[in-house]
């Protein structure tokens, strides 16, 4: 028999992505076993995040400060905005450490099947932002899916009148990818967007 409080903890843990009832039980047991080292600090951290988390008014990033740390950073280039779908995409790009401009999170993509239209996304906010500050380049870092690219084309259409360079991420062979194991779609896209080899050197 498990007490109702522990059972409640297990049920909540089981709802976390990647976990289920079995792994929820394992995680709960592990937390209880390491009460001082894990359970209490975790509870404190969650409480602190709950009290201070907010969505950045400028880019839509999640942070405990508003504007977020990325938007506050004075070393970042204000003239380049990278448009992403979700906060997770911003975090993925930040992990690379290659991009030093600003971000704009749309909050999803246009989807005919799920009934998500332009008014459900932060596209208008992006357009206003482009007109408000001196942006020179917009990088559309959206997923290489039908929805992602439909959204990219829609944004491009909306920004047609703004004097700004619009670029998109390349599609093709991933680092370490072997041609023999790539799917036909990736291969044909990579072939279609091939570049002059001399440009790379």
């Amino acid at each position: 028999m498990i007490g109702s409080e522990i059972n409640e903890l297990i049920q909540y843990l089981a709802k976390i992505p990647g976990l289920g009832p079995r792994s929820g039980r394992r995680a709960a047991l592990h937390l209880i076993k390491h009460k001082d080292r894990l359970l209490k600090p975790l509870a404190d951290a969650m409480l602190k995040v709950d009290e201070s988390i907010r969505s950045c008014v400028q880019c839509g990033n999640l942070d405990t400060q508003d504007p977020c740390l990325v938007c506050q950073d004075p070393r970042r280039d204000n003239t380049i905005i990278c448009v992403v779908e979700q906060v997770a995409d911003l975090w993925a790009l930040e992990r690379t450490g290659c991009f030093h401009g600003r971000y704009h999170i749309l909050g999803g993509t246009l989807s005919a099947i799920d009934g998500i239209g332009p008014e459900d996304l932060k596209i208008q906010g992006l357009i206003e932002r482009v007109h408000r500050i001196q942006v020179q380049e917009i990088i559309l870092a959206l997923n290489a899916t039908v929805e992602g690219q439909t959204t990219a084309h829609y944004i491009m259409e909306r920004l047609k009148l703004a004097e700004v360079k619009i670029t998109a991420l390349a599609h093709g062979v991933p680092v370490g990818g072997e041609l023999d194991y790539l799917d036909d779609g990736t291969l044909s896209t990579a072939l279609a967007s091939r570049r002059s080899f001399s440009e790379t050197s």
Partner: protein
Amino acid sequence: MDWMDTGIVLSARAHGESYAIVTLLTEHHGRHAGLIRTSKKTAALLQIGTYVRADWRGRLSEHLGFWTLEPLKITCANLLDRPQALLALSAGCSLIDLVLPDHEAHPLLYRKFLNLLEKLEKPAWQKSYVIFEICMLRELGFGLDLSRCAATGVTDNLMYISPKTGRAVSQEGGKDYAERLLPLPSFIIDLEAEVTPQDFKAGLRLTSYFLERYALEPSNRKMPSARVRLSEGIST
């Protein structure tokens, strides 16, 4: 139950973390859904428009069942840089998903849709798209009668469609009430005719009128947003 068929992915909705409910338009089993275990490998396969070999397994035919899918062609890969073709793909898939009944074979519509997917990779796909929607109307039981003029009976110079009956009307027969009739673009009758942006827009207006009136409005549904954007995005 276990059957094999070929099909086209119409939609894929996440079901929990590791599964997706995938709806296909199959050749012999019509619009059919099933569950599939998702992974990084299935991401490309589950893009709408992907042409697949499908194996469906379920205990009873009414059950959701499981798919085993093998990609034959990932259509969208060649369309990602072409906004109008991408919109046409989304519009076609969402329309079929919206209006076609479950488990009812429509081999003619299937072939027209497959033909459209092939044509989308080429510059001139507009004619195939309108023909596909006309075929969809016919398969739903609301086919247009383009054989002769409803007023005079002549078979040539057909210029309009009656919004009430869906029958063609010739220039002569419709001259007195042309503004109340829907223009019939020439490429629908004459398959060799060139398709101008105006013709394409008129074709889309024609099919959307009948689709809305007979297939969508009676069940209180709206035209898919991709289809709306497709007609709005044509610069004439």
